[in-house]
């Protein structure tokens, strides 16, 4: 892949019958970048993301993720990416420790490696007291942090985060973004969808989807200049309202 791009998308389209959910989108994401993927509800963000993570087949277009084609090698993509859905798909009836063991095992880590990673995680997040608690009993903020850490367990090239901070308080959101920065600094690419425009400001580059198309794509600073807006919120409103 040229120019250090870890995601390259060209004219990617997804149709459900007559309805075009994603209409010929094109963009690239560089290694280590925090890429914000914005759009109103129903604009096609989640559909686009599902194509990139290999669980939804595109109708047409081209896309490469972590060096693999989404049409022909979706399973190879899955080895190299992490994914955190808006549902925080950890198992509520397993403890934090058991969840870590399970997902580590699924990604092919050895038991010794899992233990090492788990100890790191426990220390980093200060999980000593809750590592043997059922995930279902934890507050949302904790679930998010643990979910994110588990998505990083197998050291993926890219992590996809689908509205990771929905429904949590500003302090926890702040902490969460610190975690994102930290992993971006260590070379992981972050692909994140969000509805919070203050979070959009944290991203290196931002794309805004409207009705299945990418209407704007640039750094938050340039977007604000281009749309003569004080903040990303205004940029978003101008675009989304048409």
């Amino acid at each position: 892949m040229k120019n250090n791009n870890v995601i390259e998308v060209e004219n990617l389209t997804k149709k459900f019958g007559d309805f075009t959910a994603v209409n010929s989108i094109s963009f690239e994401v560089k290694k280590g970048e925090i890429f914000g993927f914005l759009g109103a509800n129903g604009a096609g963000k989640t559909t686009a993301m599902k194509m990139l993570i290999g669980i939804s087949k595109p109708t047409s277009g081209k896309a490469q993720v972590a060096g693999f084609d989404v049409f022909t090698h979706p399973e190879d993509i899955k080895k190299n990416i992490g994914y955190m859905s808006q549902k925080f798909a950890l198992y509520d009836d397993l403890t934090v420790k058991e969840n870590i063991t399970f997902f580590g095992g699924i990604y092919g880590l050895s038991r010794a490696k899992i233990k090492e990673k788990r100890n790191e995680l426990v220390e980093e997040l200060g999980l000593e007291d809750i590592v043997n608690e059922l995930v279902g009993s934890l507050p949302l903020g904790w679930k998010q942090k643990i979910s994110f850490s588990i998505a990083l367990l197998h050291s993926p090239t890219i992590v996809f985060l689908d509205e990771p901070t929905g429904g949590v308080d500003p302090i926890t959101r702040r902490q969460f973004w610190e975690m994102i920065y930290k992993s971006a600094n260590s070379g992981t690419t972050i692909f994140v969808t969000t509805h919070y425009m203050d979070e959009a400001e944290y991203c290196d580059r931002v794309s805004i989807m409207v009705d299945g198309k990418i209407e704007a794509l640039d750094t938050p600073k340039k977007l604000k200049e281009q749309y003569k807006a004080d903040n990303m919120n205004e940029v978003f409103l101008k675009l989304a309202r048409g």
Partner: protein
Amino acid sequence: MKTILFIVQKEFRQIFRNKGMLPIIFVLPILQLVILSNAATFEIKNIKFSYIDHDKTSFSRALIEKFDASTYFNVVAEFSSKKAAYAEMAKDKIDVIFEIPRYFERDLLKQKNTDISVAINAIDGAAAGVENVYINQIVQDFNKKAKVALSSSTDMANAPKDIVTIPSFWYNKTLNYKTFMVPGILVLLVTMITLFLSGMNIVREKEIGTLEQMNVTPIKKNQFIIGKLFPFWILGFVLLTVGLIIAKVVFDVPIIGSLGLIYFYTAFYLLVVLGMGLFISNFTDTQQQAMFISWFFVVIFILMSGLFTPIESMPMWAQYLTEFNPVKYFVQVTRMVMLKGAHFNDILPQLTKTLIYAVIMNGLAVWSYQKTT
């Protein structure tokens, strides 16, 4: 292989952690086996018997007494007219109206021939048939004794000779219906529990969103499916074992054949059921849907398994349909092995069909499970 172990470990943890589900898995089937095996009886007892005696002689009274003495009949009423008797039958108060004609004794003595009228409530046709047989037996018996009584007073040499059949019942000598029902009901429970649990388990992961998470991992389709179904395969064996112990200890059902053979067959049978559960879960989005569809099949499977009604008496088209019923084969195999002591060669036809079924069902299940849609 390692990946599969991680999944199996996780599934067992979840099964044993679910405090609401554990009793449903283990206690309810035991209760069902005990209750159903006692209640699902083909024997007809406590038949409500009524009579109209127009004769009122020692002969007619002796005949009524024979019914009274029988354990199958309760003599509940005597009527003076048919009209009153029919009114009671219409209210379901009586099952049988037995009418002894006037001059019953005289005709029997003089002409050696008389007629008795019997009316049976046949809303349940099968029960009515059995009642008819019982009544006939008692009347025949009475007839025979009457003949002996009559002939003894005349010439012994001219006494009529009856042909008597002496039935001998094989494999279930005492005609104990429990011996027949317990293996069948056991099969049913193993089928139902494993089908419901496996079907609902995967749909549940769909509902809570963890299945999507699984689909984003590099886990292979066959690893996921084997890891998911293996715990329920084991659970099926546990249920079978518990059921067999109850069959032996509580019902004293004979186990003549090899237990190993039953387990061997069950190993393949469970694959059919689990494949079916997975197949259903691939086409449903909620546990409710999965449950409804599972029930739909289970009810058909039960009623067409030969468990409650003999397959031989079904219409031809229905008999062909039962070929697609895995429960039928399992019922046949357990009954054959437990009661007749059948060997491997005897159950080979059932085993082969089950095997083919398992391959097709699991093939469909694996094919319909898609990580990428």
